[in-house]
């Protein structure tokens, strides 16, 4: 299905319908919702209710007692997560969150105002878990869990990217991501995942990565990287895999092993670590830093994440380094220490090159690759020639998860400013903690929901357009694999002529290596500035 033209898509109606939201039936629009999960994906991880079903069908083939399962699940979870209960209880509907959501800004659907998206579930909570809701019903904002209500919750649970921008503006810190995360967990009790999440989860379970790359194909990819790097630099890097006794285990999002422009980020990392002579290893088992289980259920997230610690233990490394990825770092930073800590078998991370102790990660021993590289540059350990990136006019997209789930702002900017000379920020209300999602996070990066992804990508792309027009920006840097996949599409649609790059691709272009040949091409095989004729 062809997407509407940008001018058409940008005609957005923000006025809500005349009828109240409880009385306005939700119509499933093609281009907005992703496809339902396949039975095989659920069977692989022993999830309930595997069967063939289609979102478009009237009958979703739910278990007989689906209502009971959902409500019991809800009651269980409001007693396990204080966040969940509190956020269902205390919202005053002040509306501060309403126009903070990229899907609402880009689409105008009132049920995509975070407050109302949460009310979809909150109304069910009131009906079954609060006295006033039980007695007063609709006047207390409560409603029965009918099949249409369930479908509505599903429709909007997969229109939230868990980016937490609304949570930043909420006077009580109500986090719609928490509500979406748990709504999806409840839906998964009924076998109602989407294909684009359930598939990667099953892949990750079997092969260690979302893309289902088997060990020998991973090696094939690296062989290609190695050859391309040799062509570009004259240097043949020799990464190791599953090597016991390495000092550092490097885990990156598998997207960076597979598709452009993420692959250039991986290549950049290969060059950098070769130049440093770093004692590190890749793993084909722990071949995924991201965690689509996180978009499924807490338990599934933990089940998938296990491989990283198990592998670190098996290989007897000292600490773990994580690549450029968004939700991966939300999970690594805010969850995995709680799941698997205390991590006694690792050592407090120290950079073998600079001797810097990474104090802020002394407990769970995971270092962000940008922390590592920023520290290298600060200590003058890299020979950099930023003029090699002179053809690029760069802006930087803060990923939602590293921004609002970590607070990771200065390190990547420090690196970018060290490796290229033309850097311009997007407007202040669209960066750092106020950054906008790419529109495709939390497993919504499918193709069948493209219209919604483009709508959700509008606020980000529009800010890029602003700096493109003002400063001639032609490259959007980011530290997230989903961004590298999704922003290419969104930017191409809304603001053609701007590329997308990982930060370590920029680093590798600027990196002057020992014994390199005269560099004429960048990692993409395109001429470096001033080398167009070579």
């Amino acid at each position, binding site marked *: 299905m062809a997407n509407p033209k940008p001018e058409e898509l940008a005609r957005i109606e923000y006025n809500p319908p005349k009828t109240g939201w409880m009385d306005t039936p939700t119509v499933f629009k093609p281009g907005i919702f992703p496809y339902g999960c396949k039975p095989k994906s659920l069977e692989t991880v022993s999830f309930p209710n595997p069967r063939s079903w289609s979102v478009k069908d009237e009958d979703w083939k739910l278990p007989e007692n689906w209502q009971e399962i959902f409500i019991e699940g809800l009651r269980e979870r409001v007693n396990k*997560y204080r966040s969940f209960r509190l956020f269902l209880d205390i919202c005053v509907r002040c509306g501060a969150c309403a126009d903070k959501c990229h899907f609402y800004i880009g689409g105008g659907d009132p049920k995509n105002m975070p407050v*109302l998206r949460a009310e979809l579930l909150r109304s069910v909570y009131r009906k079954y878990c609060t006295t006033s809701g039980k007695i007063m019903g609709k006047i207390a904002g409560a409603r029965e869990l009918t099949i249409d209500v369930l479908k509505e919750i599903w429709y909007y649970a997969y229109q939230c990217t868990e980016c937490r921008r609304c949570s930043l503006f909420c006077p009580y810190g109500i986090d719609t991501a928490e509500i979406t995360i748990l709504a999806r967990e409840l839906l998964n009790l009924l076998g109602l995942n989407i294909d684009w999440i359930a598939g990667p989860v099953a892949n990750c379970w079997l092969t260690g990565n979302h893309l289902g790359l088997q060990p*020998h194909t991973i090696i094939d990819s690296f062989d290609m990287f190695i050859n391309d790097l040799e062509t570009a630099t004259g240097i043949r890097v020799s990464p190791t895999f599953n*090597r016991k006794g390495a000092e550092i285990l490097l885990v990156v999002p598998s997207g960076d092993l597979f598709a452009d422009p993420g692959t250039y980020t991986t290549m950049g990392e290969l060059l950098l670590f070769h130049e440093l002579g770093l004692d590190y290893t890749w793993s084909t088992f722990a071949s995924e830093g991201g965690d689509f289980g996180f978009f499924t259920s807490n338990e599934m997230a933990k089940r998938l994440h296990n491989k990283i610690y198990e592998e670190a233990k098996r290989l007897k490394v000292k600490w773990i380094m994580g690549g450029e990825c968004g939700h991966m770092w939300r999970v690594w930073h*805010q969850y995995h220490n709680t799941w698997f800590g205390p991590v006694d078998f690792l050592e407090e991370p120290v950079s073998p090159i600079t001797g810097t102790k990474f104090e802020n990660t002394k407990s769970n021993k995971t270092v962000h690759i940008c922390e590592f590289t920023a520290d290298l540059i600060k200590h003058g350990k890299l020979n950099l020639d930023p003029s090699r990136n002179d053809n690029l006019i760069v802006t930087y997209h803060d990923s939602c998860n590293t921004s609002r789930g970590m*607070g990771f702002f200065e390190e990547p900017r420090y690196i970018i400013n060290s490796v290229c000379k033309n850097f311009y920020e997007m407007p202040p209300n669209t960066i750092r903690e106020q950054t906008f999602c790419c529109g495709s996070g939390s497993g919504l990066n499918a193709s069948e929901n493209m219209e919604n992804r483009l709508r959700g990508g*509008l606020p980000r792309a529009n800010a890029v357009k602003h700096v493109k027009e003002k400063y001639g920006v032609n490259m959007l840097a980011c530290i997230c694999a989903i961004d590298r996949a999704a922003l290419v599409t969104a930017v191409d649609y809304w603001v053609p002529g701007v590329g997308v790059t990982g930060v370590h691709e920029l680093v590798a272009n600027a990196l002057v290596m020992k014994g390199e040949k005269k560099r004429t091409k960048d990692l993409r095989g395109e001429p470096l500035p001033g080398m167009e004729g070579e």
Partner: protein
Amino acid sequence: MGLLFSFFTVIALIVIVFIGVNGANLHYLFGVLIPYATFLAFIIGIVYKVVQWGRIPVPFRIPTTAGQEESFPWVKQNKIDNPSTSLGVIIRMAFEVLLFRSLFRNTKAELREGPKLSYGSTKWLWLGGLAFHWTFLIILIRHFRLFLEPVPVPIKILESLDGFFQVGAPVLYLTDLIFLGAVTFLFLRRVIIPQMRYISLAADYFPLFLIFAIGFTGVLMRYFLKTDVVGIKQMTLGLITFKPVFPEGIGIIFYIHLFLVSALFVYFPMSKLMHMAGVFLSPTRNLANNNRAAMHVNPWNYPVKVHTYEEYEDDFREKMKSVGIPVEKE
């Protein structure tokens, strides 16, 4: 529907007390029993709810980070919006609770031709909210003069500051004016802004009407009907010393005011108004962002079924060997 229902509920409350006191002479019921009972319900309700929240675990440390995290010594941390220590959290919470810092960030998204999106700063909700909550608090504190004899000096100072402009007799309190203005503003934005009207429930209108009616009856009593303050103080002192008295000449307006406050007492613990207590417990605000430096314990963390390396190697051993990846079992 929610709007009208709420409005008429408040009217009904006023009618009930009017009939009860003026018609049926139930002074003891409306002047003593109901205030006692509802105040008790208020306290028990709040404690119950807070204990209920407090007993639910916080499985994960999930602060919403709103500034640079703690990093290298040469990177400046935003210690308030992304605290890594308890002191930082206390400061963050103080800003949040006393000054509504998150709301202060508020922006308004606007889409123009182009398309061109912009996000202007908008402080009206912050200002209205702050005015409402602070004046409510000051008015509440001023009311302590009715329960304490002699009136403590700090309350007298507060009163004189509040009546600084010395307008009218009795002196006009600025907070009364701002309070009613702020409630009106909060109501009007709900009715006028289409999106706000769309998301508003009875649970949003009812407390606004109720609180407005409480404020309005208070203002009527003080400035217009000039109710016998000495008599009221005898009565309020009687209430808190458990020796209720009913002096002559206390008008129905006082009973209405008191009954509406009683209604608020009962309604408070089971409503969204509990955000007053809830904000202190919010895991996205009251936790330090030190996840990687210190382990956060989830009391219900449990072992999960995993796909082990052995299973992985069993699946792919030959393929691994074919490309020279070391394996555990040859």
